[in-house]
């Protein structure tokens, strides 16, 4: 029973990591950028939810404001900071992303101070607990898992079946060839950022409901763990990000449950190092060689 409840706990955390990892992976897939500002977008989302809820006492509005806020912010960052570097070396782009990350953390600190604020988690998802046999599951856990899985199914459909999704795959595989098909690269990249930050907005609300404290560094560790999840699954791969997210979430809960909670963060990075040593392309990352 304890095992089962820990498993569900791990699935909840894992589904949040998976949502965040998807944003990392999709952006990497399309412009080869490790978008280290991704976690900080989520942090900003936490504040958007907090502020909107404080002003309106409307949970739905708070959720919508978080998602819209994350999307607008991410698209603005792409336009202002990343787009001018399209032809620049990848390292310039990476350094810019780190700069944006620091900028967002400092901006949040300036606006909302460095003090942690309580997140109205129970107002957004009521704290109801279901008892199934000897197992108790909270509504928040169920909502998190259900919303994440639904988002991933919708994303898979979008990427596999829609015209825009196929264009995204084409651009991420061969930008030049995609242009020769008549695909507008810039709007495809913007679209990718919209999707990634939409998922980040959802992830932001769910994460803050699980750990109901918002502060300017909230996104750093979450972002890093999601990054590890993306690498673990094979960066650029969508199913890989999902598998990686769940793997990290489950491993973290497992570590905590055997009394090694102080070691969970170290464990996550050990996983990254081991993975990079034995299989740098990740679980699902495949390298296909061109035939002549």
């Amino acid at each position, binding site marked *: 029973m304890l095992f089962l409840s820990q498993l569900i706990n791990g699935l909840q955390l894992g589904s949040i990591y998976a949502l965040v990892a998807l944003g990392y992976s999709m952006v990497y897939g399309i412009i080869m950028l490790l978008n280290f500002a991704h976690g900080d977008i989520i942090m900003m989302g936490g504040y958007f939810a907090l502020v909107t809820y404080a002003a309106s006492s409307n949970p739905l509005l708070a959720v919508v404001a978080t998602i819209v806020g994350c999307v607008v912010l991410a698209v603005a960052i792409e336009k202002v900071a990343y787009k001018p570097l399209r032809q620049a070396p990848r390292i310039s782009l990476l350094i810019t992303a780190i700069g944006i990350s620091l900028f967002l953390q400092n901006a949040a600190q300036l606006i909302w101070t460095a003090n942690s604020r309580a997140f109205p988690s129970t107002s957004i998802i009521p704290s109801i607990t279901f008892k199934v046999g000897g197992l108790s599951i909270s509504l928040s856990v169920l909502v998190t898992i259900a919303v994440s899985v639904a988002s991933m199914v919708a994303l898979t459909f979008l990427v596999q079946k829609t*015209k825009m999704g*196929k*264009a995204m*795959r*084409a651009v991420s*595989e*061969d930008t*030049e*060839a*995609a*242009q*020769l*098909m*008549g*695909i*507008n*690269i810039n709007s495809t990249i913007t679209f990718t950022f919209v999707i990634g930050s939409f998922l980040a907005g959802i992830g932001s609300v769910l994460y803050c409901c699980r750990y109901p404290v918002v502060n300017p560094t909230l996104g750093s560790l979450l972002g890093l763990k999601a990054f590890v999840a993306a690498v673990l699954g094979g960066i650029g791969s969508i199913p890989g990000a999902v598998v990686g997210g769940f793997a990290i979430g489950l491993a973290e809960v497992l570590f905590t449950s055997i009394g090694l909670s102080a070691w969970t963060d170290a464990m996550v990075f050990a996983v990254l190092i081991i993975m990079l040593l034995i299989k740098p392309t990740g679980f699902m990352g495949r390298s*296909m060689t*061109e*035939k*002549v």
Partner: protein
Amino acid sequence: MMLKVDDIHVYYGNIHAIKGISFDVNEGEIVSLIGANGAGKSTILKTISGLLRPKTGSIAFMDQDITKLDAHKIVHQGLAHVPEGRRIFLKMTVKENLEMGAFTKPEATKQDFDTVFERFPRLKERQSQVAGTLSGGEQQMLAMGRALMSAPKLLMLDEPSMGLAPILVEQIFDIIKTLHDAGTTILLVEQNAGMALEVASRAYVLETGSIILQGTGAELADSEDIKKAYLGG
């Protein structure tokens, strides 16, 4: 005149790759550009399709200036470019590759597919196969089929015979002739000068970024210089 290239100069950083080239393609022609490795053939096609920008000079397609138009907009004008090395989407299926070829249309119609499948029956059998698992010849057919999905007015082919066995080269050139007979105007880049001159209405010979000879396909095929340099005696 369908395509008019007027005195273009193209650079890669400091490298002056195309040094003032002018040529044109009339509706219904097959025009071949031939020349050795590094002569600048691919650079010219990439400049026409908007992947590269000329420093000076101009390019007009269907009497419209396209010199500064973005690559994806040029495709919408009816100009398709099958790049060197095919550049099909290896991780996507054959069908998805063809759909991408029809990206300029609201959607790929059954008729678009049927037209391409009629020309390349092999692609029909392999529709749901991932393109990376196709043979080299099949990949070339897919690259051409993909370009035809947009029903282009002008089709630019960059070394379609590269790396193919002689029998497949014959087959590819037969397809080029069929496409031409069906009314498609073609700009063909080849190192296989013999085949390229045989199908060409007119041809241009390129050497290190400049045109050194031009004429009808037959004239150039008979020229002693060409025989020596490109046709093996």
